[in-house]
């Protein structure tokens, strides 16, 4: 019988299935960070349970860590306790940890692939919704709650119900200035923030095939913003090339065997999808969000929408609330929105290709005088690579701050936050109320668009830079 990629990975990890379809799924890779794991380890301790396969788990502190000089440790008391707790738990349960000052430390979804810990065809979980990122490599990857983290630690499995199959085809070729961030914002804007609920989305089509693996990560990363359980992209030669010689990639004979397996990971040509959406790349412009849901997107050339034109009453109420929170008026031009801060980073857009693209646009220019801007590389290795290429100097010369790796202002758990009513063009993934700081106003954009906003001091069109 023909199968989708999701069907294949699912069937390949089925440990047990009840009559009602409740399945016990094997977990090949488990990523752990400091915020959603302490209660899970505590649960194991209380019940006298062990970690079943410590080698299949990798831990890193990322959400809470300062992005400024770390040589003196973490000054925030509670953050320090969480990071210390992670360290102690990893020691007690025998789990590999990249600690705060390890050069490999970084955002959990960036270091997984970077190390080759992430691999095609695997089931990957983490107590973080952006685990969907790893789907870019053809792994079934999704976020779980802390009770489930405890379940995975104790059993190396997870209780799951199978989702339905959804395919999004992005056809044609991307216009100039349009990146994978715009593609996923367009998809979320099209299907809505709950459009993927109950599904696993496979992204396919010419545009997806032509993207680099890092660009694909941006797409899968934000699948959760469309409500889907996971996002998937079939691995190809680019994927295989990416994993060659990574520290934790298969070696020697195992590499050959793994590659043979990875090549079988695609949806059969006659596989059935429960839902399918087609998007034409020529309809995608550089996008920004204007509201407090990732589905609130507008082309940079557009206007803030008028809630009065919305027919659905609940949606209209939500739009009014968003506009009030964001301090915007209906029908104002998007390019008239003035920004205070720029944030380039996060598991969505904190990789070397993102920084290269931004630096290329920024070279020789300065940020607007009334804007403050920061770059937070996704990992210590991304930072090192960027510094070797002189990218840090481009940012610093332009007036950006060059920081240490972590989640930073994407969720503002550390000191990197917006003040009330401060407006930010951010390459992160969520524009929820209070996400980047109480009262803070977030506009989600691509790295190129963040640079354009930094230079102009307003939300601006990346196509007009240079």
């Amino acid at each position, binding site marked *: 019988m023909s199968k989708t990629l999701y069907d294949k990975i699912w069937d390949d990890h089925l440990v047990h299935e009840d009559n009602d379809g409740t399945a016990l799924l094997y977990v*090949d890779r488990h990523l752990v960070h400091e915020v959603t794991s302490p209660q899970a380890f505590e649960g194991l301790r209380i019940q006298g349970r062990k970690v079943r396969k410590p080698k299949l788990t990798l831990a890193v502190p990322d959400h809470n860590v300062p992005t400024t000089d770390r040589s003196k440790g973490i000054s925030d008391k509670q953050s320090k306790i*969480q990071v210390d707790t992670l360290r102690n738990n990893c020691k007690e349960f025998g789990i590999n940890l990249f600690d705060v000052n390890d050069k490999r430390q970084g955002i959990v979804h960036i270091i997984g692939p970077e190390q080759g810990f992430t691999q095609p065809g695997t089931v990957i979980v983490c107590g973080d919704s952006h685990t969907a990122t790893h789907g870019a490599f053809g792994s079934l990857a*999704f976020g*779980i*709650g802390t009770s*489930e983290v405890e379940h995975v630690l104790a059993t190396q499995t997870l209780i799951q119900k199978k989702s339905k199959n959804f395919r999004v085809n992005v056809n044609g070729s991307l216009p100039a200035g349009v990146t994978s961030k715009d593609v996923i914002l367009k998809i979320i804007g099209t299907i809505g923030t*709950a459009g993927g609920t109950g599904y696993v989305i496979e992204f396919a089509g010419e545009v997806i095939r032509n993207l680099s693996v890092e660009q694909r990560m941006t797409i899968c990363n934000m699948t959760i913003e469309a409500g889907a359980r996971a996002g998937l992209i079939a691995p190809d030669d680019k994927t295989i090339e990416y994993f060659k010689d990574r520290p934790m990639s298969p070696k020697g004979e*195992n590499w050959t065997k793994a590659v043979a397996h990875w090549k079988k990971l695609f949806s059969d040509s006659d596989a059935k999808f429960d839902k399918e959406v087609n998007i034409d790349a020529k309809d995608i412009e550089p996008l920004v969000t204007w509201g407090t849901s990732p589905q609130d997107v507008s082309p940079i050339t557009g206007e803030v929408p008028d809630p009065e034109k919305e027919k659905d009453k609940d949606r209209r109420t*939500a739009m009014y609330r968003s506009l009030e929170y964001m301090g915007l008026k209906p029908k104002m031009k998007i390019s008239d929105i003035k920004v205070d801060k720029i944030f380039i980073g996060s598991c969505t857009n904190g990789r070397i290709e993102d920084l290269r693209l931004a630096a290329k646009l920024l070279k020789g220019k300065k940020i607007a005088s009334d804007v403050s801007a920061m770059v937070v590389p996704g990992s210590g290795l991304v930072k090192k690579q960027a510094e070797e290429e002189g990218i840090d100097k481009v940012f610093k010369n332009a007036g950006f701050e060059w920081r240490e790796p972590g989640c930073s202002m994407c969720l503002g758990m550390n000191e990197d936050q917006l003040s009330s009513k401060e407006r930010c063009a951010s390459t992160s993934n969520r524009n929820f*109320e209070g996400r980047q700081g109480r009262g803070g106003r977030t506009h989600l954009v691509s790295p190129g668009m963040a640079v354009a906003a930094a230079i102009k001091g307003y939300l601006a069109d990346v196509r007009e830079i240079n």
Partner: protein
Amino acid sequence: MEKFIKLKSIPAHIPLMNIDTDMIIPKQFLKTIKRTGLGKSLFYEMRYDESGKLIEKFILNNDPYSKSKILLAGKNFGCGSSREHAPWALLDFGIRCVISPSFADIFYNNCFNNGILPIIIDDKSIQELSEYSKRKEEIEVDLNEQEILYGNKKLTFDIEPAKKKRLLEGLDNIGLSLKKIPNIEKFENSMNKTKPWI
């Protein structure tokens, strides 16, 4: 985990769609290493102003809703992050049942690991229950019968049998899965042969 069988309460209605986990419990409260104590910070930014004073017009700041065990909300409740701090905060506040036209996937699953019953019913029924909220009258949720009783009326809801059983019996998932260790070992042995690189 505490069993969920029947629950009676005056429901509190927050008529907003897409209530995300950042709204339910903002990031500054995720620094805890405990599961308890989050109730006072539930819906923090809607409940307290910037100086930390209670915002009077927010429903959960008013009696009898400050004691509600049942929450009515707009669609796509719990979207956003996977933080289990969201159901922990609801539970710590005293809410054991959330009724919405739809839920985000991770939040929905997290509820069942904490003895919280998420009920999916249509918009119209939410509006009807909302009337009881306004009148400050109790409604009753009966999980075994899959019914919501209000006034002299009732409506029924669907729930997966396995999830229902877990709540009714307050079962520990990990304990149940550990009984399947022979299946897990068999799977691992076979995987070691077919996918030795894992």
